[in-house]
């Protein structure tokens, strides 16, 4: 889901830590090192990496490709190949039948069955295209905040993991408890009350 879409979902983060200076060079080099690897004609079934916001399929990272105003803007790209289970089932049945005929046996060992399935998945992955999904990211470095344009669990987990892998700094998801702790200017006494808080009952 893109920033420029008519309807978006937003997950918010606090960025914990600082990058090595010069910051923009560190950011650029991090994006380059962890950019998306194409998996077309390869046996991999999934690839996760950074892609240019303005051109997520062919763009190369350079400063003007990720800096808009004071915002660091990038896309998280997740490419996935999905082979329908029934296709694997069909190919397996054909291949298993061939093997049985060739060997003259009437059964296949557990290992043989596994090898056949692995080979089928491998060869199908080489043939089928991956489906790309793009999720935009706006990082306001000075404010230590980051907006991620998705609310889905899987992309959120991929973002948190890729961000840490790229920059060795953590993203803290802002939900009510962390908002209270990090963004609400609470005193130590209030933080202590927060930690020991229990739900209110409005019906008694």
């Amino acid at each position, binding site marked *: 889901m893109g920033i420029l879409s008519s*309807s*978006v979902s937003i997950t918010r983060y606090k960025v914990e830590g600082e990058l090595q200076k010069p910051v923009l060079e560190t950011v650029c080099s991090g994006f380059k090192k962890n950019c998306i690897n194409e998996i077309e004609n390869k046996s991999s079934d999934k690839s996760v990496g950074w892609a240019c916001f303005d051109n997520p399929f062919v763009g190369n990272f350079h400063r003007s490709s990720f800096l808009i*105003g004071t915002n660091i803007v990038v896309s998280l790209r997740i490419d996935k190949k999905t082979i329908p289970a029934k296709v694997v089932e069909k190919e397996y049945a054909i291949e298993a039948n061939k093997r049985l005929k060739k060997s003259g046996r009437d059964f296949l060992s557990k290992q043989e069955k596994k090898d056949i399935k692995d080979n089928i998945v491998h060869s199908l992955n080489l043939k089928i295209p991956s489906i790309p999904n793009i999720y935009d990211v706006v990082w306001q470095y000075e404010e230590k905040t980051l907006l991620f344009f998705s609310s889905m669990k899987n992309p959120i987990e991929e973002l948190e993991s890729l961000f840490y892998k790229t920059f060795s700094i953590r993203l803290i998801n802002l939900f009510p408890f962390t908002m209270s702790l990090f963004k609400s200017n609470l005193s130590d006494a209030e933080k202590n009350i927060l930690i020991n808080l229990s739900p209110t009952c*409005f*019906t008694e």
Partner: protein
Amino acid sequence: MIDISASYNKYGFIGNEFLTWLLFLIENDIDELSKINNSLITLELGDRIVMENIQENVNKTITIRGDGASLEEVMTALGTGALVSEINLSYKNNDQNWKFTLTGRSLKLTSLKSPKTIIFESGNDIEGVFLEKVYLYITITEFIDTFFEHFIKIRLSKDWIDTTVISIKSWINQK
């Protein structure tokens, strides 16, 4: 040392209490909301409210749909101990209008429709539209932050039990 990931579930109720408090103020004391955030012109219920009842370890969810999200059903659910876990809202500020769904447990914004921006015709315009969009998204997140910060200060103070909870209980019992 606080385990941040465990705190998501442990303190999930804070978000639901926040949305319930927000609904209470929208219905009963919109002036109070305007005092908290003076940029507020109108804040109205949208077409969907999700109520969650986690009392006695039974997790029950009710979704209420329709314009103004049928307050009668919401009040009935509140009377059984449910709290607001998701709320669809419409926020107007001058000529601008944001529509969005806010989730209590995560404070995520979903189905966010921000005010219209200019249509871009060339590559150079994209940057301008982008900056305007980001500004509009930041505006709405800051708007929510203002209310949340106000809420959490009250929630952690003596006023919560002494005043706010009494008012909310009386509102629930009145209906």
